[in-house]
């Protein structure tokens, strides 16, 4: 399976994502933001970082990068596009997923492990997973998801919420919400569920010596789903 990770100026989780994808059997290629065309891929990843220094708004300038037109076309044709952290912010800014990401409620960068609950497995990312609650890692300053009431209704009606912040038992209460996001939302899909944006970094949880191994489960399953 082929994947592509886009490097924007200021991306800093691009290498980590590259390492993770290769580790679990993808043939990954790095793609420069100023390129016109995506290489042939089964999965495109917008990695974490501070594209364009987070200037203007996080993800906003990257969403206008040259390569993004091909990414948008790829997504519209049903290709799998995943945005992690800053990648999620870029997806939001490019309109591929609904809503916005505001500054964290307590106005501070947060780096820690969190638990997230998978809402629906009716999608290519989570299909066939045999558990609902995952321990993943977050590291962000602007992960406070927000959208209008109408958007929220639509998102919920379409089962577009990918993951919610929760505790180790899967309870999605406000006190388990690290950044103030609406309804504890940690990640969402587009309507067709081929585009996933989420704040947590599965690529940082791929080794028992690191923060944990739930990222490994995610990537292995993703590869099998795409095959």
């Amino acid at each position: 399976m082929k994947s592509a990770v886009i490097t924007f100026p200021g991306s800093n989780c691009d290498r980590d994502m590259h390492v993770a994808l290769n580790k679990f059997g993808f043939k990954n290629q790095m793609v420069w933001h100023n390129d016109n065309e995506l290489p042939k891929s089964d999965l495109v990843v917008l990695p974490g970082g501070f594209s364009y220094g987070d200037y203007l708004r996080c993800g906003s300038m990257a969403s206008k990068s040259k390569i993004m037109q091909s990414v948008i076309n790829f997504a519209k044709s049903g290709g799998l596009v995943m945005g992690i952290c800053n990648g999620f912010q870029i997806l939001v800014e490019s309109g591929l997923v609904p809503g916005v990401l505001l500054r964290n409620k307590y106005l501070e960068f947060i780096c820690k492990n969190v638990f997230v609950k998978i809402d629906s497995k009716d999608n290519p990312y989570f299909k066939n997973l045999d558990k609902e609650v995952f321990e993943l890692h977050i590291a962000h300053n602007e992960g406070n998801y927000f959208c209008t009431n109408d958007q929220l209704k639509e998102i919920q009606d379409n089962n577009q919420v990918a993951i919610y912040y929760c505790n180790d038992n899967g309870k999605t209460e406000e006190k388990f919400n690290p950044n103030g996001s609406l309804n504890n939302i940690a990640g969402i899909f587009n309507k067709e569920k081929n585009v996933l944006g989420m704040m947590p970094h599965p690529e940082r949880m791929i080794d028992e010596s690191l923060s944990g191994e739930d990222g490994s489960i995610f990537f292995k399953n993703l590869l099998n789903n795409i095959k």
Partner: protein
Amino acid sequence: MEVNEQIAIDHGLKKEEYKKICDLLKRIPNLTELGIFSAMWNEHCSYKSSRLHLKKLPTSGKKVIQGPGENAGVIDIEDGDAIVFKIESHNHPSFIEPYQGAATGVGGIMRDVFTMGARPIANLNSIHFGSSQHKKTKNLLRGVVHGIGGYGNCMGVPTIAGQTSFDNSYNGNILVNAMTLGLVKKNKIFYSKAAGLNKPVIYVGSKTGRDGIHGASMASASFDEKIEEKKPTVQVGDPFTEKLLLEACLELMAGDSIIAIQDMGAAGLTSSSIEMASKGNLGIELNLNKVPCRESKMTPYEIMLSESQERMLIVLENGKEDLAKKIFDKWDLDFAVIGKTTNTKNIELYYDKKQVASIPINTLVENSPMYDRKWKKTKLPKKNLIKKEEFKKFKIKEVLNKILSNPNVCSKEWIWQQYDHTVMGDTIQKPGGDSGVVRVHGTNKAVAATVDSSAIYCWAHPLTGGKQVVCESWRNLISVGATPIAITNCLNFGSPEKEENMGEFVECVQGIGEACEYLKFPVVSGNVSFYNQTKEIGIKPTPSIGGVGLIKDYKQMITMDFKEINNLVLIIGKTEGHLDQSLFARNILNEKNGPPPEINLFNEKNNGETILQLIKSNLVRSAHDVSIGGIITAVSKMCIKGNKGIEFNKPKYFISEIEYLFCEDQGRYVIEIDPKNLKKVISILNKNSVHFDELGKIIDKNMIINQKTKVTIDELKSYNTNWLSNYMN
């Protein structure tokens, strides 16, 4: 403007220094030249008060590839890999403008590391604030933490360890020391020594602005009531540009175009161009009209003295300009050929086709002033006669609560959660342990790093304090299973013009030197920060030591959390009950006199090496060194992290229980072992003549100290974890 003595004094130069400049030049310098001299001759750049003493530090060893004198030190970690590292202060700017001051401190030290061709793989910091009651402390702490995070997080380099302390003596002078480690192949290290004539001199990175002019001079003076006026001397950082600069430089370094490279740090274009030429014994000629400027009509004086961030100066091989330009264009960075190397041994500056400065380089470097300042020796204070009858009135549980929630002991999670400590995917020991540990990407090796200081001990007796802080660093590396290799030091002191402060400096350096020599733990880089004082009041002497060690198989790394119920807990090293200058004496008894705990370098080395031997034989499950707060504080942290309790053995005390639990005797470690390995462990300890006691046994959920004193793990956690977040929110 005609230069005269008063203008020189306004530039921070002394009368006699100005006279020396005129003598060396055999004429009166013009203003640009005077500015260059003031930048090169200030304390920050010239080390004029410290050089004489720093020479005494041990700086070489089998693993040292590069000692002090380059942008950073370099050590060998085998298999062709090397670690480049250094610590640097950004104290004065951080007090004036905490966010930018701290941010640019982090940016500056990372530049020092990647200038040498190394990709930064870990950041650390040592930050010190005034009393928690002081009105400025909270805002300064918040600003500094945001600044460190703002820069390091954006760069995508994990911040893996640090140290935070609070003390009255920092009320008017906080300390912000930033350290970076980078990874490089041994045969791809870049140096700042220029070579060859007529080689193009290239300027890359951000444009030059009017920010930070005289930053280095500001850092070489004491603060007074006019401090707010100094805000414009603080540089403004842009981590995004630095990230691009890092990637562009590493891309260029992959080829063979670079002869020498130097970042523009303190004293900007002045010191970078002069250092490269000086090391190569060459001259350098710069056309200042070619320097990319952010603002119009900048004068040669301003261009030379600006400390705008994220800039590099490179001496290229002839004919490589186009190739280099292509790389910097790709990363949207400025690139300009601004001059060339010459054989004149002068720095010659041109602006609007006129020569605006011409100075022999040796007058700026070799002939810079060096002082043998007067200094006063600190006598070892008399041992305090603390009345032991008084101990009876203390309830251990109440004292433990006060100690664990003390600002200098409590958990600093509120701080390090704001630093990205997991990016790059190799952090295997996060902040909060004895050392931070990162894997060497793609290998089985890992590098451990720690930063430490003990200002109280250094203040009580600088010679002992200097030794202690090196030993503390050594112990923190050993505790995670790393073999200590070398240190970097950041020496924060008051005014060298005061005999007491100079004495503290001289004796701390002597102590550091003795310990480094004995432990074979050389100093490979560092920085001196004097004038950390407001009016007449200096800070407590605060040398920060950044230690680095290697773990050959990262799976053998040790953490401090208790692992398993029924395992045995040993205390290694002798407990003799030294309470003077301990947290207990100072904060519970309110007794500030007496000597710090003694350092026995033989025991220190022997105990440490024995612990490493035990770890390498897979006999240690968890380990933690004993530092401030004594045995009970060390054990409490192991309980909290492992979510397990301990039942202390009934001790054979020759000293009181309070002394046993809270004293700060040095060279000690707490280790957890499997009971079935007890014999093996004892035989190794005995063979090496290492003193130990069986401290207790790991149990579930409670710390049972004696029949009357029981503390639950939840209580320990609440003592230790809440103070800082409550204080900040």
